[in-house]
């Protein structure tokens, strides 16, 4: 580990590595504090148990990031179709035979290694990689309906449609991320609007399925959450009230690390409502800090987009980052009661099991792209504007492998 912390081994945008490090560190602090009461009840006051678990997960996550960022990012271009095709049967299997928790089948257990994970976590990653490949391959004729829009749209609707019955919020976020990615990938405006229309159509279909198979889809849960959100009696349901109290306790500067009281009353304080605990302990200052870290991450990725000589790297990095940032913003929006309650975690910060691994793989891939950008910068230390010009006129740089002939 010592060896790989040297500059030589960890490549890519150092600022981004720093942001990830800060987020993970923040996560360790917040999770340690938020799990206090749970650890007290389950492990008789041995509060370090969850901290250790989180540390181990962070360690494994860093290893994943390291391994993924060491690869040439073009590997992911080759892998994308395979991973995508695998996602479809996996999601179908989950819907049919998945492990049921809270009336929803979201998890499956891998046989031999006995690891359970949410197939939607995998499917998100696979779809975005596939989408990046698809969009970049079709850049030349991207405004075309038949040859570009249709082949891009179908996979999105398919995957989101398969996720929606058990996990509507994830499906919605993935859909939004995909639309944003299509937007970045130069899909024309009218198709973007058409996409929204298809989305509504898809949602209608899912509700229709519920009409005939009420057990397969959780429409009743959705309805109750949305009505809870709208009715806003007493300022919201139990979780919402407790979350608001936490934020109010924090006020400007917060109560200080480890001083949260709401962690005892907020269900899943260490996951879904970690942002409220951060607000409570670090105040508006901490809340702003966390939010800025995610924005900064997005900003750094837009630099990759700018510098990337080819569309695949740019769209891949942007897509994966969007996926995480969208989830982060959604989580924060739930905590401050901007949107109805969903079960989303704050990526890199919340305590989580296997989902941490998928997040780490995603970051690893982003850093792999970043590493590549750095390597071409080192070889061609051209000023930025010149590079942009070069990119704009798009002659093939000699140092870059050809991407389009896959």
């Amino acid at each position, binding site marked *: 580990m010592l060896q790989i912390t040297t500059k030589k081994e960890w490549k890519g945008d150092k600022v981004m590595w720093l942001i990830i490090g800060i987020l993970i560190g923040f996560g360790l602090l917040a999770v340690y504090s938020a799990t206090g009461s749970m650890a007290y009840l*389950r492990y008789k006051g041995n509060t370090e148990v969850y901290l250790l678990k989180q540390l181990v997960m962070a360690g494994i996550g860093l290893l994943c990031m390291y391994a993924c960022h060491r690869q040439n990012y073009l590997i992911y271009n080759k892998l994308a179709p395979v991973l995508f095709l695998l996602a479809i049967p996996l999601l179908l299997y989950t819907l049919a035979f998945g492990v049921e928790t809270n009336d929803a089948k979201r998890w499956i257990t891998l046989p031999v290694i006995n690891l359970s994970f949410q197939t939607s976590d995998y499917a998100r990653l696979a779809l975005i990689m596939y989408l990046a490949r698809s969009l970049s391959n079709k850049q030349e004729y991207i405004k075309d309906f038949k040859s570009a829009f249709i082949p891009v749209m179908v996979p999105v609707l398919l995957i989101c449609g398969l996720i929606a019955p058990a996990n509507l919020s994830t499906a919605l976020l993935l859909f939004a991320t995909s639309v944003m990615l299509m937007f*970045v990938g130069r899909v024309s405006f009218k198709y973007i609007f058409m996409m929204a229309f298809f989305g509504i159509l898809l949602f209608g279909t899912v509700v229709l399925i519920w009409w005939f198979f009420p057990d397969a889809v959780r429409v009743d849960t959705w309805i109750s959450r949305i009505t809870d959100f709208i009715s806003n009696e007493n300022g919201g349901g139990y979780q919402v009230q407790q979350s608001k109290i936490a934020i*109010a*306790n924090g006020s400007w500067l917060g109560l200080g690390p480890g001083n949260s009281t709401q962690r005892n009353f907020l269900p899943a304080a260490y996951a879904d409502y970690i942002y409220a605990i951060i607000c409570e302990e670090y*105040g*508006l200052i901490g809340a702003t800090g966390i939010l800025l870290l995610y924005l900064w991450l997005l900003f750094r990725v837009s630099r990759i987009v700018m510098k990337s000589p080819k569309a695949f790297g740019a769209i891949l990095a942007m897509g994966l980052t969007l996926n995480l940032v969208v989830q982060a913003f959604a989580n924060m929006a739930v905590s*401050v009661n901007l949107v109805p309650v969903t079960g989303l975690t704050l990526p890199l910060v919340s305590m989580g099991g296997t989902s941490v691994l998928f997040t780490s793989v995603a970051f690893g891939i982003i850093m792999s792209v970043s590493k590549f950008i750095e390597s071409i910068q080192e070889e061609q230390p051209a000023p930025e504007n010149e590079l942009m010009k070069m990119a*704009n006129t798009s002659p093939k740089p000699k140092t870059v492998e050809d991407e389009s002939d896959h």
Partner: protein
Amino acid sequence: MKDEIIIRTYVVFLLFVLAGFLILGRVVQIGIVEGESWRGRGDSLYVRHQPIEPERGNILSSDGRMLVTSLPLFEVRMDLLAVPKDKFVKNIDSLALCLSRHLNPVISERAYRDLLWRERQAGNRYLLIKEEVTYSQLEKIKTFPLFRLGGNKGGLIVVRKSKRERPYRMLAARTLGSVREGAKPVGLEGYYDDVLGGEKGSRLVQKVARDIWVPVDDIGDFEPKRGKDIITHIDIDLQDITEQALYKSVAHHQALGGTAVVMEVKTGAIKAMANLVRSGDDIGEYLNYAVGAATEPGSTFKLATMMALLEDGYIRLDDRVDIHGGEVELCGKKIRDSEKRKGSLPTLKQVFAQSSNVGVAVTAQKYYEKNAKKFVKRLEQFGLNERSRIDLEGEPAPYIKEAYNVEQKWSCTSIPWMAHGYELTLTPLQLLTFYNAVANKGRMMKPQLVHQILEYSEPVKTYKPQVLKNQICSHSTLQQAMELLKSTTDSGGTAYALRNRLYKVAGKTGTAVTNYYKGDINQGKKYQASFAGFFPADDPVYSCIVVIYEPSANGYYGASAAMPVFREIADYSVASRFIATEDQAPVNTAPLPARIRAGGYATDIRTLLHFSGVRFENRCLNEWASLSPTESQPELTGINLQQDLVPDVRGMGLRDALFLLENKGLKVRLQGHGRVRSQSIAPGSKIQGQTIELTMG
């Protein structure tokens, strides 16, 4: 092309900046603008973790039959504010009607309606509807108007409680003990409280009014851990015989109460322990005399005196002793035998067999008057000064005076009176432990009620027989003690009535006067009749003590009040041992898997079958299932638990069957033991509160 991508990227980025402003705006709004009011509500929305009581473990008999179990019971409450006003107005009349008609006819429909309105006005979110509701009643209540909408909209709150139930009612009730809210549990329930109690879980509850807490959804719950089960040594059939025989005697002799304990000689295992107390016309298990009542034992103690004399080598059993015709004055006080005796001087063996107080007192006085320390030391050697350490609370230490200790009022009378069982106190169990040691070739065993502790039907702890004293006296003393105890059933002996052709008893009667020191004896003496011994005399299996307190009619002697109880216990034990050895043979012929018949909780059965590798046809979709034999392989089918139909409980254990039937409002009568073989009402019949008879076996 590249430009377009970059521009669009910035557009997306801007979108997130906007979203960021929205989120932070909310943080400012909640945390700072509305901050004060939310912080204030922090107190009013007070929540805490409320413990969830775990299910208490069962107490089982030695063959695994249920002596004590927990049955589920519910408390029904109502959150009146959970119901929207329009629905409340629409349904209150019909709800009031249902409550009045089905739950409590004493309260009229109108009164219920007023109550519900009043409490809603008062904002009661936890109105008590009914305590102690059974499962079937609860199912009914759930169909009432409003309540059928469930907890969130209909305001129905169901609190799960449980009730301790003894399927065999009074049997060994005091030994098993009881659990009462706010008091320390007694009996086995008390001694093994930690084991039976399990571990508490906890649930997040929210305060809605003073002292009233409502669960917050299902979030933040920690499941409690069920208590472990304990298997006792108690033999239900023997306990039943013991209890019945004791009851007969207490009733017949109009006694204050009585106790009888049966102990396995080699292990100290308590096979039966009955305690009856009369209160008015009622005779029931209320006090544990066997463990807690230290009294002057009377003549049963003479065994110890004789053994001390033998151990010290002062006497031989054929020594003759002058009993002064059955009455003598020692130290200015008279000692009398129960009857005047004439004729030749009896031997010491005869003195013991005929229970002559004078004979024992005079002999003891002769050897120990100047030598009391030696006598007391012998009693200590026999373990008579120590507790039996049975696994029950409340055992007092024996009281035996220190030799010549004036503070303990040692006097000239002490030796002769102690010699025939006065001026010292022992509990029945302590005396039995001593007799048991004599039966067990001098090895004193600790009396033990509990055999094993089970967790999920697997033994997690086994209590091995424990030796209190390895050898209480010499071999020759033991032999002679045995001879003395057998001599009581000889002709002229006090226990002659126990003589029979089938087996031989060794034992000693006792009749103690309990109020001799309380002034005027002419007011009427009070007695304590007892019998202690073991059987069969030549190879003792069980030892047993019977004590009848204050018999007031039909004879008060140990031989007339206590001995018949002993006789019934011994007769049954010996008989059942003969039977038991005879029918052991067919038990080993294991049934073919296809012939298995069982019923119970479907998941449990499936687990068991998978575990034991039995192949079966799974046709069960219900929670409860029955396994029935077919030609090829057993078939698992669901049990119909429809509201008002009698379920099929054949093949089930008692616990499952009781749970299902009693929850449906049926009264259950039992016959035999084992699994349910047949039921008197056919499955699928309509339930109308009948009594169903189960034949077990």
